[in-house]
């Protein structure tokens, strides 16, 4: 019990800090002179900060050091409490919105999923849109630290590998020895690139509101848009191109970006096996799908096919979830392949979701290793990533993670099937939520959204987003009796 109280104290402090994030929509409300919404946001800010303060006041005696076990509780607590409080402005501003839908929307924001239950986005009050996108952005911010600093500490699904153990840029000890410093440095990169993205989108033809909102959701690889038609609304190849560039940037490890920026050279990218594999896979898929669509006659000429294929493939594969056309109408191979990429392509220290490229590479090599072992029974061949040996216990951790990952997807899909959804919708919705990319197929396809789901189905998807974002183990460990035993 004491453990929970210590965590509540920390959560209280976090909520007080989180309440500061209302400042941005409040400023935008000033700019758009939308004073009713302004009051709603001030109210939400007040409630959030007082709730946080209250939690802290009641539990302030429990100052104990946070241990690894607290870590699981704190991370899950953060990712459930923050979206809960973030629903306040939505509930206050939008009439008739249920808490379930509002919570889905904010959870989708903070897990950078980008699935939406709202329709008529174009007519939403600008501060509310800014708030939704800011959640995407904050989610990305949290994920980077989670991925670079906290998950490796907990060692989830072989995550420790990404930190001290070896490969790629993470090996560079000079990335700063302290979590706090590392986080600050990565945030600096994140914030700086977001600003560049805003300017680039404005230059490409968006207005300032759209530019800021899309920059937020691009960097977080969230995929919220200010328009129901998503990026298709702009119908501009230039905007699509700019978004592709920044999505590809965000799907790489931010530690690599940091090292490259600090050293002012490209060599960290060359050493980042994950980034090379991910980019190679995504870009070749763009061309492949374009050829496929052209061959199938979906688009009359190759250039058009390449334009639509590139944007949608990059968007889904990086787990952003923007759409520029209804890819639900494409032959089923194309959207399925895009979703498959979303499961594996993102780098470990990025804002993307899914299994992560590093784990994919490890398993791929492990499979090859088994083949060699069958042919040469006496062989000694350790698993190597970028020339460094990956210890066996990490391989096992990754295997365990993958098993849970697929079991989660299967189980949640079955639950949706029981609730009466059709297979394609159910399966694609779960894939979209667990991998945090957003749009699925069928009932939850790019032209529609999650509004058609009933409350039960919404909660299942919501749980899928949370569990996928926090790398499964973190959430499920709370359900094991052992966790609560001393």
């Amino acid at each position, binding site marked *: 019990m004491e453990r929970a109280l210590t965590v509540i104290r920390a959560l209280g402090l976090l909520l007080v800090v989180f309440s500061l994030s209302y400042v941005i929509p409040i400023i935008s409300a000033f700019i758009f002179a939308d004073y009713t919404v302004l009051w709603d946001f001030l109210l939400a800010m007040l409630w959030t900060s007082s709730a946080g303060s209250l939690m802290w006041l009641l539990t302030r005696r429990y100052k104990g050091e946070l241990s690894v076990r607290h870590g699981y509780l704190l991370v899950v607590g953060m990712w459930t409490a923050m979206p809960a409080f973030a629903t306040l402005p939505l509930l206050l501003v939008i009439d008739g919105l249920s808490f379930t839908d509002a919570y889905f929307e904010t959870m989708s924001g903070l897990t950078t999923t980008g699935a939406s239950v709202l329709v008529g986005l174009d007519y939403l009050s600008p501060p509310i849109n800014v708030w939704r996108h800011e959640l995407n952005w904050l989610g990305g911010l949290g994920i980077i630290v989670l991925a670079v600093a906290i998950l490796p500490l907990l060692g989830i699904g072989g995550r420790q590998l990404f930190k001290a153990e070896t490969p790629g840029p993470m090996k560079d000890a000079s990335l700063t020895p302290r979590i706090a410093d590392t986080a600050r440095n990565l945030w600096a990169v994140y914030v700086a690139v977001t600003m560049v993205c805003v300017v680039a989108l404005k230059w490409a033809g968006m207005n300032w509101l759209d530019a800021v909102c899309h920059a937020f959701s691009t960097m977080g690889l969230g995929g919220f848009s200010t328009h129901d038609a998503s990026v298709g609304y702009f119908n501009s190849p230039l905007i699509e191109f700019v978004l592709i560039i920044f999505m590809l940037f965000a799907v790489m490890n931010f530690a690599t970006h940091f090292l490259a920026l600090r050293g002012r050279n490209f060599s960290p990218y060359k050493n980042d096996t994950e980034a090379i594999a991910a980019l190679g896979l995504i870009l070749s898929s763009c061309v492949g799908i374009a050829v496929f669509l052209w061959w199938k006659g979906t688009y009359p000429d190759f250039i058009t096919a390449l334009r639509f294929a590139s944007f949608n493939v990059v968007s889904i594969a990086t787990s952003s979830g923007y759409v520029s056309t209804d890819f639900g109408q494409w032959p089923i191979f194309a959207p399925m392949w895009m979703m498959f990429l979303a499961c594996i392509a993102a780098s470990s220290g990025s804002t993307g979701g899914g299994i992560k490229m590093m784990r994919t590479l490890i398993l791929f090599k492990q499979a090859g290793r088994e083949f*060699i072992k069958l042919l*040469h*029974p*006496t*062989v*000694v*061949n*350790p698993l*190597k990533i970028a*020339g*460094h*040996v990956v210890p066996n216990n990490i391989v096992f951790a990754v295997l365990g993670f993958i098993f849970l990952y697929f079991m989660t997807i299967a189980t949640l899909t079955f639950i949706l099937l029981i609730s009466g959804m059709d297979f394609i919708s159910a399966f694609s919705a779960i894939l979209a939520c667990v991998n945090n990319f957003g749009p699925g197929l069928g009932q939850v396809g790019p032209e529609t959204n999650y509004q058609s789901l009933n409350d039960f189905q919404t909660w299942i998807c919501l749980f899928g987003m949370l569990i996928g974002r926090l790398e499964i183990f973190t959430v499920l460990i709370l359900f094991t009796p052992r966790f609560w035993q001393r």
Partner: protein
Amino acid sequence: MKVLILGAGQVGSTVAESLVSEANDITVVDTDASKLAALQNRLDLRTLVGNASHPSVLKQAGIEDADMLLAVTQSDEVNMVACKLSAALFNTPTRIARIRSADYLAHPEIFSHDNFCVDFSICPEQILTDYVRKLIEFPEALQVLEFAEGKVSMLAVRALEDGMLVGRELKYLRVHMPQVDTRVVAIFRHDRPIIPEGSTVIEEGDEIFFILATENLRSILKELQRMGKATKRVTIVGGGNIGRRLALSLENDYQVKLIEFNKKVCGSLASELGRTLVLQGDGTDENLLESEHVGDVDVFCALTNDDENNIMSSLLAKKAGARKVIALINRSAYVGLVQGGKIDIALSPAHVTIGSLLAYVRQGDVAAVHSLRRGAAEALELIAHGDHESSRVVGRRIDEIDLPKGATIGAIVRNGEVIMGHHDRMIEPEDHVIVFVINKQMIHKIEKLFQVSIGFF
């Protein structure tokens, strides 16, 4: 010459043996008294037990009037410190150290006069690795050695029954391959040297030594031997210093398998090597060799530190059908025993590496020395200085030079250009002259021949 050798291991004792026979004063220092006793029983030299990096030990060993310090202990660090000390305290003129670690070698500036004062660093394992690599690249050759920074090569081949040379005169070579300029510098028949003339008829089993420009190596080998397929599969037994280096240098060009007995060593090998397939097992286990298809291997190298195991596993491999087998053999008695039998090449590490040291010991300006036929013969690269007056070689035609019988000038390298040593060529100052000597006794004469007379100064 007074030489101080630190370390009485493989390299130290071979060098001592080779130098003693050339009338040098040798002192050997080691911490292991039994090794020194064994050495002293055999050779006429002085020994001293002690730590080679202590100034007092060095002083006692007579470093104050030594002409050369040869630091070849097991430890790179001891070797470097000994060089530094001898430079700082005793002003020894020439200091040579064995440095194995690639980490040190990657920073040559640490050997400069401000730092560790190592005049020359040698790495016997690397020399041996390069040597074996050549044998793998040119599987038809018995030996391939380089001179003048790799511009000139010396090639040794065995005349085979179905080869084009057997039963023909040497003159025929010229007629048959007019485009490739080579020179036969020696022929060994039943281990006895024959001085090659145009009319010499080659018999089966002769060892023929050619000198030629390195770029012609491939084409002459193609002509001399029936067209063998290029080397593709290499199996190495023994993951020690040499096996590891060899695998590392080969793995990008060939399919390499490395068999090592020690599990721990296997682990570290596998993490260091990339494409090499590391197998844990005994190189003399015929079941393992069979299951790894050793019969299809192009080159099989047994490189453990156990002579008997090397001989046995290479015999097994040869019997299974391996195209060429190489065995590393430390004991020189064994080398003579197996060379030319079932085992294609018996590799004596001492003789392969000694040449790099001999180059520093020789008088006159010697750029490279290769010890051949277990130290009996030698190939030298000498630099000619002076002019017609002061030198006995410069400004003369090759057939005017008073070479001892059995010594042959194979080639001349002038400003990077390779000139074959035909009888009518002139030697100019600063030429690199490659001389093949069939008998070591003549080396002193050759050295004197190339020395510039006093009048030059």
